[in-house]
């Protein structure tokens, strides 16, 4: 009886750990997105400071490609929106994962209690 519980405990523990890893991955991805967000904001502002006389280039690989100022502005805005959307997505994902991990935690604790009880009983029997 105790062994069965122990096995269950182990499996639950593994699941929980996996979940934790996912959570941390999502977290780091989200942080990266946030950095990009701030950067793109600055780019947008600086593009605003320029006028159409300046040529704007975009670095694609090793090549600097000429871009139109307005096009650049549009691209940057689109990118910004995209980033925002991504962040939202990650947010929801993170919340979901948090909830699941909480559930797992509860399960784990109850299993642990059961296990200890079983241990106690075993000791008592012996």
């Amino acid at each position, binding site marked *: 009886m105790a062994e069965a519980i122990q096995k269950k405990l182990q499996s639950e523990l593994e699941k929980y750990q996996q979940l934790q890893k996912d959570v941390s991955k999502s977290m780091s991805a989200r942080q990266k997105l946030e950095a990009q967000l701030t950067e793109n904001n*600055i780019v947008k502002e600086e593009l605003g400071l320029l006028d159409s006389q*300046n040529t*704007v*280039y*975009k670095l694609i690989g090793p090549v600097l490609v000429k871009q139109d100022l307005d096009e*650049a502005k549009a691209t940057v805005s689109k990118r910004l929106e995209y980033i925002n959307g991504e962040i939202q997505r990650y947010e929801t994902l993170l919340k979901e994962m948090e909830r699941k991990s909480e559930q797992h935690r509860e399960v784990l604790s109850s299993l642990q209690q059961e296990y200890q009880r079983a241990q106690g009983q075993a000791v008592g029997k012996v």
Partner: protein
Amino acid sequence: MLLDMLYIVLLVVKDCRSQIEHWKKVENDYESLQDRLRTLPDKLSYDIMVPFGPLAFMPGKLVHTNELTVLLGDNWFAKCSAKQADALVEHRKKHVKNTLDDLQKVMKNFQNRADFTDDLEKLTGDTGDFADIREEVINEEEVTKGKPRLALKPNSKPKQEYLLELEEDKEKKEGDEERTTGVLSEEELWARLDELERQEELQDERYRLDSTDTNGEDTTSSSEEEKEADGGSDVQVNGHQKENGWVPSSITSQMNGTNGSHPEDEEEEDCNEEAGNGLPTIYFSHTAEFKKVRINTGKNTTLKFSERNEQKAQAKRKKKSGKSNGHSPHESYKITSPADIYRVFVDLVNGEPIPRKSILKSRSRENSVCSDTSESSTADFEERRAAFGRSWSHDDATHSDTSDGITEEESPTGTSPRTNGRFEAFTGTVIEKDPLPCSIPHLTIAPPALPTIPERKLEEVGPEAPQEPPKRMSKFKATRLHQK
């Protein structure tokens, strides 16, 4: 827990600090860049040494000094003039400044938190009501009276440990010299165990009896022992010795530690608060005097003083002159230590104020029914008591008890027969004694009015009472016996 919080907060603060440093560097870089941008378009071209790989330079020219390709971020570039670049840099600097300000705010908040937790910790943990009271014991070589008794019950080890813990918790600590437990011989060990047991019993007795005071030899001695014993380390042979009638004997130095301090009259407190170990330390020193003599408790007895009492006597003589007989003057005494009590209670013998050894005993045996406390002395005592109010602390009383105890032991048994009809209020608690000759205690036992008289007096009460170790008797039993 506070420590953990503090740690975390400090970590955050450290992190903030490093980030602030980083951003400050960035700001400085932008500043110098701006300077360069301002000077760059001054000339059409510059002669420079162009870096050629990592190890070489090559003379060259810097041209188009106003055309700059600026990285806007996220792989976007823009060709601008120097002035426009300058504007861009300015814009970025604004961002950096904002970040810096935020970091500073965070750091300040966390710093405040850290300080607060620090203060809180200091407040709660440091002071409190605890002070480390230490007593350094210097001499251990004093000769003690009494033989070490053979322990009769060899099974009291656990009690000893209990006592050890109990007494270690007590405030008074003696120096490390006192804590010699390892080297006791077996017999001494038994004696020690026995003592500890007795101590425990005495403690229990004491709790049963009047709560305000512990009277009587045993409790006195036990209280003394408890006071003196450091973690119950040394054998409290004092009690035994008292009972055995002060047969002096030499005991090993380990025992002498406490025994040496035992015969003292009083304790003097030298309170030096030292700020050590986070706890204020009060250094407590016994002025242990080896009591070689007894103090006059009556006209019949020899008059010997211990040094202290002599000093006191002298002090008293200086103080007062023409004091009334034996009655303590109702002067404005301020009793702050047990010594003061002795100063107060002074017998006038031959016109001279003589400190009396036992406050509760009457001066003259003739006056009193019993040589010890009982009637007259108690009467006097009560008078005095009224005068003083109950300004005596438990300690004081115990001390008086102690001295009484000591005195009584040595008092010659050839005292006038106590039997008398004068039964006055007995102002003291009666310590339980053995179911010994009933003649002993009843004569002068009255319902105790005040619980500060050592019941040693009871011993002497009984006519020709053998010098038996007094057994404690509860006051109720005493009353009963008395009434019978």
